[in-house]
């Protein structure tokens, strides 16, 4: 079972996403901010990390930067859900590499499709 870690400070988002992804057969963990997420994934590495950008304590991009720094061999996909990927965020994300942006409002269908496609590619490779 593929593991998905959702990071968002909105409890409703986590709730609906978790439900949808669990229905698709994914195992879902959640965190309410970047700091908690970083600590959690060091213990249990996910296959996909889906994170919001604006969060307390540590925002989503900083989380990704810290992941790159502290988990250099990470192979899992980073999905960033954002209102509008501004230039500044894009610049920072480019340096991290292997990041997918999903613009809000996020479509669950799209997200599920994205994950399926990703895992399929992995299988082929």
């Amino acid at each position, binding site marked *: 079972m593929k593991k998905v870690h959702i990071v968002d*400070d*909105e*409890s*409703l*988002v986590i709730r*609906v*996403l978790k*439900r*949808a992804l669990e*229905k698709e057969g994914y195992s879902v963990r959640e965190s*309410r*901010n970047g700091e908690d997420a970083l600590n959690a994934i060091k213990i249990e590495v996910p296959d996909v990390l889906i994170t919001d*950008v*604006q969060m*307390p*304590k540590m925002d989503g991009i900083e989380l990704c930067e810290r992941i790159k720094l502290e988990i250099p061999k990470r192979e899992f996909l980073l999905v960033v*859900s954002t*209102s*509008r990927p*501004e230039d500044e965020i894009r610049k920072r994300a480019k340096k991290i590499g292997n990041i997918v942006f999903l613009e*809000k*409002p*996020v*479509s*669950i*269908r799209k997200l599920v499709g994205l994950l399926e496609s990703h895992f399929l590619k992995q299988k082929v490779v």
Partner: protein
Amino acid sequence: MIDLTRTSRETTQRYEVILSLVFSVAIGLSAFFYIQYQMDKEREDLHLKGQSLVHLVSEIPLDTLVLPDKQAYFYKLLTEINGKGFFAYASVVSSNGNILVSLFQRDPLSTIPKFDISSDSSNKSIQNFTFNGRKIVEFQSRVNAVSEKEQYIRMAYYISGYKDFFEQRAGLSLAIFLLVLAPLVFAFLQNQLLAPFWDMKLSIEKSVNKSKLEGTHSDGKIKKFTAEYNEDLDNRISKIERRDLLTANKILSYKQLRTEAIIQSFPEGLLVLDDSGDAVVTNRALEKWFDLESKQIIGSKSRDWCQEKEVVSFLSRFETSSSSGYTSDTMTYTPENYSGKTLEVSVHPLFAEKLDSLAAGKLVTFIDKTDEEVAKKTRAEFVAHVSHELKTPLNVLSMYSEALQDDEDESKEFRVEAINAIRDEVERLATLINNLLSLTQIEMGGVGINRQRVRLNELLTDAFDNVSKSGLGKDLRFELDIQRELTPVLIDKGLFRIAINNLLTNAIKYNENGGLVSLSASETEDAIVIVIKDSGIGIKDDEKDKIFNKFYRSDEESVRKRNGHGLGLPLAQEIIQLHHGNIQVEDAPGGGSIFTIKILRETGIFKQAV
């Protein structure tokens, strides 16, 4: 050789004399005819009056005429006709001219001319005689007496001559005399006044034409006058030239000083480089930026005085007279000594306006763009925040509606959960949009404040009841304590209600189960004081200022687990400040927060203004 100038002068003078004589004669003749006319008129008048009077007197009985008490009356009557000085005599005579009674005689010693009336075949009642060496006119009339004898009244008056005329009209005589003389006098004076100018003209023409006059007629006086006049003219011209030069210098100096003042007073840094890149002009703002004096900059290249490598590198491109040195360019940098600042450096070639091929160096401006950058950054952050706050509830709405759409066999519990979530998010979105709009409008000054005199008791009670009964704080206790009579204040009801609502909503949101929300209002001399208290999670000391910043929300879990946008308090503060008030926050004893609002009453506003 004929001296035309001299001839023309004499001719002119001759004409002037003739003309003035003609005028004098004309005036004299006019005066003569006028006098003659007046004298004839007087004579005619005398004849008429004399005839009437003599007939009148002849009707009066003789014995009445000679009465002593009537004498004065008759005398007056006789003399008034032509003035006392002209009356000669009045007597009663027989038909052969013998004087029977001498009634009145001006000069008693003179003998009245004898005249035999009966032998006069002309039968005229007017005769002309000579009496006392002067001509007289005598009026005769037969006395209308009862007696059979013929008796006649003889009344005589002197005829006035030129001497009498002039004696009687002295003023007129003098005026006529002066008028006759005036042209002659005028001609004489004019001649005298113009004489030196004629002489000067003669002298100038002599020297211009280089003509030789036979025996110089210009004497030392004219020469001296001309010389002095020329010298005076030269002096005046020199003075004017000097004054013009002085004025031009003053104007130039003033313009220069004014330009200098403009440069020095300019709020941004200014630097002028010559073709070789040496500084020729600086101003105070620039010197302040680099903490240097003008003498340390003037005459040097940027590498000699500027510590900022970026600036030196940028300006070095323009330290040349080649065409590349005459372009414009701009760069921004952060000064080493002012890390929070952003400076924009621009270079512009200077050209002389009237000779645009003539380069006059380069103008370098140093403009502080910090505020602009901060504003830009703030705007960008605001847009990012708004975007996030709007899209987050949309995100939830989208996900839930998608989930409902896709799954036909959703459980009832999920449906209820979805519907509630959708409803909550819609409300959240609506609140956000309203708060955003109000805030933006207030800040842009677009909100039309509709102030009315409002009794805050009612407004506060109403707002409190709405919130307390809304069901938001089911497990909370609500307390209201408003002073009975509060002085009405001028507020915008709608806006003020939003502010109170936001504070009450926060008091509920950030509270704990079984907690308390209270609202109290009282009045001081200058202000209405409103206090909203809660027994909730409280606010950390270092966040008490930040909570009034737009979109700020604490990172604390206790805050984050509760929905919010971070706009409620900033909006409340803006509204209160708009109403001449302020809001402060402090910790409530035993936990929670106290928000105190002070709205100045009119006396307070007045005091503050004074």
